[in-house]
């Protein structure tokens, strides 16, 4: 290899590692950020929405199927927020059996499933209203399992 090309190559590599070190320092600076500081609260109006499937066991069972197929990847099969798809997400997926989740109204949970907030996906156009209520019903099961 000619020396002039070697110099260009070394310059490239040096530049790359300067960028890399800037990246690492940026990561270090941000490592103490509080991912949970921005609490996710559904609007007050959502609390007033009544669950049309409340207490319907067969719909809850359908919700379980949906949950295991589409939600367990991030929230975990037991809803603990420990699914493999959520391990690198910030904020981490909610523990659905927690008091923080279970004290919310059905309407609030429905609103959150509907609208999402990154990294939680919105399922407004993926699931029908009825399917989202089935999911709400199943989320309530985690409280019983606790």
């Amino acid at each position, binding site marked *: *290899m000619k020396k002039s*090309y070697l110099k*260009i190559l070394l310059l490239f590599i040096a530049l790359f590692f300067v960028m890399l070190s800037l*990246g690492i320092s940026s990561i270090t600076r941000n490592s103490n950020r509080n991912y949970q500081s921005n609490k996710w609260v559904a609007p007050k109006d959502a609390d007033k929405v009544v669950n049309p499937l409340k207490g319907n066991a067969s719909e809850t069972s359908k919700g379980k199927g949906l949950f*295991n197929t589409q939600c367990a*990847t991030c929230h975990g099969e037991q809803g603990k927020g420990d699914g493999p*798809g959520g391990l690198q*997400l910030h904020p981490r997926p909610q523990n659905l059996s927690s008091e923080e989740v279970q004290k919310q109204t059905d309407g609030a949970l429905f609103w959150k499933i509907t609208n999402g907030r990154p990294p939680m996906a*919105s399922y407004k*156009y993926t699931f029908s209203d009825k399917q989202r209520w089935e999911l709400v019903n199943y989320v309530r099961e985690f409280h019983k399992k606790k």
Partner: protein
Amino acid sequence: MKTNNFILYFLSITIIVLCIPYRSFAIPGFARQTNLSCKSCHTIFPELNAFGRLFKLNGYTLTAVETINVTDSLDNNTLNLLKTAQLSAMMQNSYTNVSKTIPGTQNNNFAFPQQLSIFLGGEITPRIGAFIQVTYDDQGAAFGLDNTDIRYADQTSLADKSLIYGLTLNNNPTVQDIWNSTPAWGFPYASSSVVPSPIASTLIEGGLAQNVAGLGIYALWNNLIYGEVSLYRSEKQGGPHPPDSTASGTIKSLAPYWRLALQFNAGQHYFEIGTFGTSVEMFPGGLNGLTDKFTDIGIDFNYEKPFGDNEFTLHASFIRENRSLAATFNSGGAMGNSPALNSFKVVGNYYINGMIGFSLGYFMITGDADSLLYAPAAFSGSSSGTPDSGGIIAEVNYLPWMNTKFGIQYVAYTKFNGSSSNYDGNGRSASDNNSVYVIAWLAF
């Protein structure tokens, strides 16, 4: 004439494989459609994480943006169209240095662009989605259809457990796969287009890409067992339509492809082990006469483990290709009619906060000697008549933004086309093909 067909056939397979420096990858259009960041589906693009695999299995249909929604009088949804077309672009620009200049060529080359791709991807209907890539390749100086996967997906339950199932229509066996251990999405995700590549690779490692069309059925049960069966037929981009006596590498009848995988988590450890493969009988030239048969049987393994904000992933595969080259042997293109080929690849990646990635891979190709199939030629041939090659690939990537990747890759050969020194009979050593590859990969 038959010998010419054979040469044309093997040359075209070789060129196809050698000229696949590219791997397509996830597209910003999916981020726009889902309102989720790239990191929701990827460790570092194009490597998929668990959610990304689920998104793909569901047919790319998860949608968070407003749609034009129509329902009929029976409350059936008859239209759910995204208000904006999900168009994305990708550009790879690169620089390559080869340890020893290839005779008669320039060293230290820029590729600008190495590859420019336009993607159309996302939901078509609530159950049908697509990943369509059209690519401009600087070597061919032309646009062409690249990796394409159109899916129908739905979900139900089986034995009280969840079942995602669907259909895939695609043009490259393994492009529909959700793991990064199979050829279409395997490491390295980008590599130079101007360095010599080993003389042999198995057919499934790019030899059929964009030259076939296949329809398959797949299912994931209980997030545990994945199975797929597809059937492929020749659909050669740029070739005669329909294939005629001038066509090369035309599949006789149908070529089956299979995939079976088991995945599970043990705490924060993710494991996948599976098998994949295809059996292809094809005419080296034309549509009549003797055929060559390739049976590729692959096994693969994946492992993932997060460490706080960081993550380690490992992908490995082994492919055994059994060949029955009746046509090639009969036309004098091979010494034997059943030279087998093996391909082993493993790569370990460590990703820091999704911004910095370190990868170290090892690859090995071994096979039966055949001095006609692997003929001597300056820098690209084999003086020993064996396809054996091996080496390591080390790569560092920096992603200041999730949709931009700046990387350096070093490829070091321990063996090339059968030998570590004077492999081509013209004094070139395997290490002369070592290369440094610098890439700026932009997606928007």
